[in-house]
């Protein structure tokens, strides 16, 4: 099981801020495509992914128990 977090416009498009999935042992890229298609998400090419609170790249492998966060372009400050 992995925990997936969504923020900002993604949270609104999906209708919730987190979900649990059993898509472990796949690269970030695949989870991204899967969710993009399933929820018809917009602007996913601008969205970063963090695994366990650290920025990850598309090739990084998601492991069982990971917390994966989808991070749209930040706008704090």
């Amino acid at each position: 099981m992995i925990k997936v977090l969504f923020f900002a416009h993604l949270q609104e498009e999906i209708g919730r801020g987190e979900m649990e999935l059993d898509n472990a042992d796949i690269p970030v890229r695949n989870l991204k495509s899967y969710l993009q298609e399933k929820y018809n998400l917009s602007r996913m090419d601008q969205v970063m992914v963090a695994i366990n609170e650290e920025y990850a790249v598309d090739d990084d492998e998601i492991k069982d128990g990971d917390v994966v966060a989808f991070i749209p372009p930040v706008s704090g400050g």
Partner: protein
Amino acid sequence: MTDNFDIIDTPIDTQSLIDKVTKREAGAITIFIGTVREWTEGKKTLTLEYQAYKPMAIQKLKEIGEEIQSKWPKTEVAITHRIGHLGITDIAVVIAVSSPHRKAAYEANEYAIKRIKQIVPIWKKEHWEDGETWIGDQLETTPYPSGKPNVKDESND
């Protein structure tokens, strides 16, 4: 100095950040206060809403502090960002930097706000008279080819 970096949902007390960085070795303290501005490029903001991925945001603020202490020795850094609903003139972020000398205090402070806008997972939703939008969402900037976000144009730029 973990408690020098915080994300809160209540008003920020600037003085408490000044107190955190005040020390006998310091001759200069710089403070940056980011406030909610009413007008941005002809659009009137009514309120703002900030959302954060809180544990990661605090971690990234802490990393910014470490970057600063590595680049500008003998500095002390404190940063608090507010989340939730904010009105015009409300304070969204306060950055405090102390240093023996003022040049480092100015440079390090400006570096901090730039880095916040690059790497800290906090999002701003603008509520205008005619609608609302998550900023970042709206900017249509280039994607992040390197896996790292770029600096973007924001409220106090």
